[in-house]
């Protein structure tokens, strides 16, 4: 029975029937996404719903760019939360840290994978970026700061913060013992080591926070610096990206933490105050974004330029109005739900999760509204207004990416403790 005592925590390595079904379903969806992409790879982007701006009346960027922005946005959650927990020394929030960091890393991988199918020459895309990259292009910041710098910093942080738990689980006999030993890399969690570790993590957290703002800003600059597209050219674009990234990221993190809490039955380690803290952070970010929306709305309607009028009316009252008002309503709704709980000082897990999910709707719709209308309704020369509706290939690739992300998350949960291992759980 000694083996029973030394079972790895959080169900690592144990796959029940439910988990296997989940993994098989996810694998099937990923396979479908790969099949859809293979059609595009062979036949070209003709199988998407995208077409040229101008005489063809299309949108040359579509769902792929929309979800690239979404995934990069979601990545905000993890590393911010983790860094803030470290900097403010929030002991009660520590169980969330790794879940958040993992969300960052996976969403950054998904962001890379969603920009790749947007390229007409994906292989050349990877090679030429190393050979000919130009820092003058706003894309350069996306590739260097976001994909390379941000992802790399997140991985380092993730690795360092995981060493303690790796050292603990490495003491227990399991098939993955070699992996935990490798991860721990000699770290034994002695007081001296812990002090050095805390020091490094603290400095890294300080370094990551400015990187976070610049990385999300560069993605905003991809749009905000373009004078040729009405609705894009705005100094508010970069800060708006940072805040919306925070909203979508924290919102999704709340939902994920709630799911893990239910799956692992960890109500004790993930009590309501954890969600309250995340909910309050989300509430503040939504408040800032609602302010940005007001500023944007006033600027766009008070004395707009001729070209902006067409676009603004398409968004506020025209064909995109349902999208705009749905996103505003879901943001305002999420804010109200959180604010009322904040005022009456009584929080409900279900309501916090609800607002976390509501803002996902807003996050996706706002990105569609950014990318598409400025192309189909935003031509400066009087071309006939265009249309864009994504094809089954685009939908399949995006759904496949979500499945891939979930799969990576689930698999990680089965090989490594998703939360800090508690002292009492340290086996023999």
């Amino acid at each position, binding site marked *: 029975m000694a083996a029973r005592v030394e079972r790895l925590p959080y169900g690592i390595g144990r796959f029940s029937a439910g988990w296997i079904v989940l993994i098989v379903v996810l694998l099937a969806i990923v396979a479908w996404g790969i099949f859809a992409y293979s059609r595009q790879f062979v036949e070209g982007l003709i199988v998407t719903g995208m077409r040229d*701006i101008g005489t063809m009346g*299309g949108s*040359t960027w579509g769902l792929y760019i929309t979800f690239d922005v979404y995934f990069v946005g979601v990545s905000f959650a993890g590393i911010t939360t983790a860094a803030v927990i470290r900097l403010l020394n929030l002991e009660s929030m520590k169980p969330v840290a790794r879940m958040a960091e993992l969300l960052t890393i996976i969403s950054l991988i998904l962001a890379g994978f969603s920009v790749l199918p947007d390229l007409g020459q994906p292989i050349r*895309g990877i090679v*030429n*970026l190393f050979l000919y990259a*130009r820092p003058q292009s706003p894309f350069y910041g996306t590739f260097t700061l976001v994909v390379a710098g941000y992802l790399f910093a997140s991985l380092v942080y993730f690795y360092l913060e995981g060493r303690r738990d790796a050292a603990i689980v490495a003491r227990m006999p399991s098939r993955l013992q070699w992996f935990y030993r490798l991860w721990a890399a000699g770290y034994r969690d002695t007081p001296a080591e812990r002090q050095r570790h805390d020091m490094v993590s603290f400095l890294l957290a300080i370094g990551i926070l400015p990187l976070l703002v610049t990385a999300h800003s560069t993605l905003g600059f991809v749009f905000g610096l*373009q004078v040729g597209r009405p609705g894009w050219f705005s100094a508010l674009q970069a800060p708006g990206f940072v805040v919306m990234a925070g909203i979508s990221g924290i919102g999704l993190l709340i939902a994920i933490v709630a799911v893990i809490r239910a799956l692992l039955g960890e109500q004790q380690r993930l009590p309501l105050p954890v969600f309250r803290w995340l909910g309050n952070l989300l509430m503040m970010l939504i408040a800032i974004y609602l302010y940005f929306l007001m500023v944007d709305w006033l600027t766009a309607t008070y004395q707009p330029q001729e070209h902006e009028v067409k676009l603004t009316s398409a968004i506020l009252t025209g064909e995109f109005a349902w999208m705009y008002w749905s996103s505003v309503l879901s943001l305002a709704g999420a804010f109200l739900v959180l604010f009322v709980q904040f005022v009456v000082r009584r929080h409900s897990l279900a309501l916090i999760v609800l607002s976390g999910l509501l803002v996902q709707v807003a996050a996706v719709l706002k990105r569609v509204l950014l990318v598409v209308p400025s192309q189909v309704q935003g031509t*400066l020369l009087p071309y006939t207004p265009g249309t864009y509706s994504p094809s089954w290939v685009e939908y399949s690739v995006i759904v496949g990416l979500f499945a891939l992300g979930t799969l990576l998350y689930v698999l990680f949960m089965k090989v490594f403790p998703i939360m800090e291992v508690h002292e009492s759980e340290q086996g023999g």
Partner: protein
Amino acid sequence: MPRYGMVIDLDRCTGCRACVEACKVENNTPTANLWMYVFRFEDGQYPNTRVWFLPRPCQHCDNAPCAKVCPVGARYKRADGIVSTDGERCIGCRYCEVACPYGVNYFNWQEPSGNYYMDWSDPDLRPRTNGQTPPYRNPDLDRAFGPDQRRIAGGGRQKGVIEKCTFCVQRVERGQQPACVSNCPLFALHFGDLDDRNSEVAQLLERTSSWRLLQEAGTRPRVHYIGGRPPAAESHQIEAAKARV
């Protein structure tokens, strides 16, 4: 080094779109790709209407937003002012296309073979051509141009890269005019060295007042318009091209 530019006389343009056809034949562009396009506008309310025309090639801007945003330098401005696309370097991200205020970029959404202006191997066409195939594939387009020898004329087409008007670099480097200019029946289009005071374009710009498209965007286009006026909010496009792949 010449400073190439174009002057378009809107008072002469009758909107016949011969330049559009000339461009398609010379550059062998894929279906629905209109490197040169002519807007047909109707202003005013019936019966007080005025119909007018606006040819729209690439503006070959001096401050080209497309070249600025290209992440790999496939879109670049040559010393003589031609804004070029290196089809062998382009990764197909289409950032140039969203950055361009004029909508002149066209992406190869599919393999362009058999998708050109005219498929001469078409059996229906055989009886008329006596089986003779004209130079369907313009060999000039495959060549490398300029001191840096880059293939910028759009030849050797492949899917997944961007294309646009090249000012017919293959003709200009031979001392000829771009195809649209040569083919205009009313001499509405003019091309030449803006720095040469004796050139037709320089003389035209000296004699008459001119304007450029969307100057407020700060792009400093190399295409100058004389006569007519810029399109305004009330300019309503009629007979728009419906070509879409």
